[in-house]
């Protein structure tokens, strides 16, 4: 049995590795970025302000994360006490315990959320106390629904006698299916108004992507994103990125970047990476749940929530690395489509001033928090493209 299990594990690991390698492949050349000095790129005042802002914001994240782990640690130990507040049967009780866990985390993290808003406003950035409190409260309600659906799926599967502790095998595909469905449906729910700019059709032609490009308002920060699968594919630009100090050339670069995501099927790849991580994650959770009688028992839920959050943190560096890789490919795609590295460089320099993002954060920030290449790396990429394009031209 041990040999058979080991063989299965090796086969699974090999399959996982091959799938990861296939997903990692990209159109990026084998590049080595030339290191630039940030002091030469940014005015000293802008750089100091961004670094100061980011260093404190990082501390808030660290505080909130440690608080979350501490609260969930205590909850994993004592959370079963709240079982007496339920008359909902095992699955319903599991849902209640899950919601209580998240509610406690929300309450414990609230001071950090409020402090973060104060810090943003103190530094001239957009931030709303109402959003950080009441808005997050409503968001918590949405999280509860998602949590209850997830627990209903896994607990009901675990309670099927012939599935039992193997619930993770059917549960992982179910979650992949739900994620795919959400990725497909979400773009239609976002609204926005069409962007009417002369460069839209030109870029769509170059990138071979013909999708609606929409502008959504109500945000205080410059940003953009691509989303959707198949017919629901869309690019959304947040209104501030179309306003001063950003220029039309820089907006064109942003749009090219987002179209690059769609051109290289990054949404599909994200779903595939999710699927790749869902199986080991669900398996590990099933192992943890066994310590409390299995996932079908509500007593397991507080411990499983703690394990889930810890595993998410463990997987975070890998997920960020994958995300950074895709973002780099989208940047490269934008450079190839626009042939305008100056616009890209100016855009990334502006981001430092407008969003106070540290262009060169410390390593642990890079590993745990950065899902895009650093702004310094992105500027270095534009310089690299200049040399690359010059070498490629006859």
């Amino acid at each position: 049995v041990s040999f058979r299990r080991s063989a299965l594990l090796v086969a699974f690991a090999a399959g996982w590795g091959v799938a990861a390698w296939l997903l990692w492949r990209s159109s990026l050349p084998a590049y080595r970025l030339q290191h630039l000095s940030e002091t030469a790129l940014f005015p000293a005042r802008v750089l100091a302000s961004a670094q100061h802002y980011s260093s404190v914001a990082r501390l808030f994240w660290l505080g909130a994360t440690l608080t979350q782990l501490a609260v969930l640690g205590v909850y994993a130990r004592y959370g079963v006490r709240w079982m007496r507040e339920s008359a909902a049967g095992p699955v319903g009780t599991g849902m209640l315990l899950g919601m209580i866990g998240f509610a406690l985390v929300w309450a414990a993290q609230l001071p950090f959320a409020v402090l973060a808003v104060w810090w943003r406003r103190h530094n001239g950035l957009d931030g709303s106390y109402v959003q950080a409190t009441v808005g997050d409260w409503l968001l918590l309600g949405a999280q509860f629904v998602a949590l209850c659906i997830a627990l209903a799926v896994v607990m009901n599967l675990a309670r099927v006698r012939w599935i039992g502790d193997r619930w993770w095998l059917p549960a992982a595909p179910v979650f992949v299916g739900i994620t795919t469905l959400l990725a497909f449906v979400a773009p239609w729910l976002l609204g926005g108004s069409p962007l009417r700019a002369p460069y839209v059709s030109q870029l769509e032609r170059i990138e071979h992507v013909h999708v609606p490009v929409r502008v959504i308002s109500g945000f205080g920060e410059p940003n953009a994103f691509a989303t959707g699968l198949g017919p629901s594919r869309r690019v959304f630009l947040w209104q501030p990125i179309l306003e001063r100090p950003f220029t039309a050339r820089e907006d064109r670069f942003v749009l090219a970047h987002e179209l690059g995501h769609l051109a290289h099927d990054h949404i599909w790849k994200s779903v595939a990476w999710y699927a790749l991580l869902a199986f080991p994650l669900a398996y590990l959770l099933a192992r943890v749940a066994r310590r409390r009688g299995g996932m079908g028992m509500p007593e397991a839920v507080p411990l499983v929530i703690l394990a889930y959050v810890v595993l998410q943190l463990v997987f975070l560096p890998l997920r960020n690395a994958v995300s950074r890789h895709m973002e780099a490919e989208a940047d490269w795609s934008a450079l190839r489509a626009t042939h305008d590295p100056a616009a890209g460089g100016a855009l990334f320099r502006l981001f430092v001033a407008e969003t106070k993002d540290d262009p060169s954060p410390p390593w642990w920030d890079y590993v745990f928090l950065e899902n895009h290449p650093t702004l310094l790396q992105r500027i270095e990429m534009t310089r690299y493209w200049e040399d690359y394009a010059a070498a490629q031209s006859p």
Partner: protein
Amino acid sequence: MNTRMTAHSAHPVRLVVEDDYRRSRVTVFFRLLLAIPHLIWFFLWSIFAVIVAIINWVATLILGRPPAWIHRFLCAFVRYSVHLSAYFGLAANPYPGFLGEAGEYPIDVDLPEEPQAQSRWKTLLRPLLVIPALLLGGVLGGSIGVPAAGLIMNRGHRSRSGRFEGGGGLGGGVLAGICAILGWFAALVTGRMPKGLRDASTYGIGYGAQVRAYTLLLTDVYPNSDPTTILETVEPPAAHPVHVVGDAHDLRRSRLTVFFRLLFAIPHFVWLYLWGYVLVLVAIFNWFATVIMGRSPRWCHRFISRYVRYQFHVYAFVSLAANPFPGFTGAPGTYPLDLELPADPQRQSRVKTFFRVFLAVPAFLVSFGVEVALFTAAFLTWFVSLMRGSAPWGMRNLMAYALRYLAQTNAYLFLLTDRYPNASPLEGEATPAE
């Protein structure tokens, strides 16, 4: 399980009901016009009462109890307001006297005969402490009598009609107002006030009397919204096939789940919403089937029963009438505050079934009043439960009444029973025949 709400403790302000439900059609038809002299007199009296109440407040702060002459004057004022509210809201038939004399009207109120010693702190804070009671009194009705408080509560809000309206003014209250309007039609046709409407209206009047007595320092016992206590002199109605079972004394509430109660209920709301779509289809089919066969198909009856019971559980959880998180199936016997429904489909009149939606309209109107009361009570209970870790007895029983009525309306609409919802706040009592 204890199925009956029993009176918890006697309140010094006690409603005495000797009404026989008979109404003179002529005086009912002209009731508003006939009440005009009383309303004018009441308005003048209440201006004077407000001045006296302020003097009483200062005097009680100094002396520790109200002066005897002021106590007697304000008792007469409160009693008169009860008589007038009862007449105005059709809870009683005879034309009331103008002096608020004791023992002369079918809906009367016993008040403390002598001024009672009162805590000075409670007296000082009385204008603030009374706000929740005024809020609830404004919803339940029978609030004629505290015009100044009404103006404070709604900041002198003037409605489109130009009248001042609000909890303690002449607005009367949502539930009592609806009962009065429906009772007006019923009394004109039958010459009698339906018991359910009369009891609901009387309940509002009784609670209003307690609020006024508390506001005017006639007692320092806080108003108690428990229907059983207020209507202890009223005969309970006959048992209804749709009724509430559960431990009425289960008042413990978990502060954590109270704080997040609305959010915890969101998955239930989503489920209720989705289930509701299927319910509509089943209910339409059930209606056709019952009109044709004279009885609901068994599977329809069971499906709809589950839905009605599940909705009851969810509302009980959300409103804090019960503590634990409910299940998602509406199974009987799974929740501490449960709903008893007819186990099997009953034979029903085809004509009544055919017109069921129209017949249910008065019940919908009362449901609206009951829902407002439920919402208000739940809102207030949230604060109390957070502070004390338990729900107030009176509020809990008011909410149980509201939930019961809403469930009876649903059961009637969806053909689980052809017994009309009973608006009486009192639980039905099984007769020997039943």
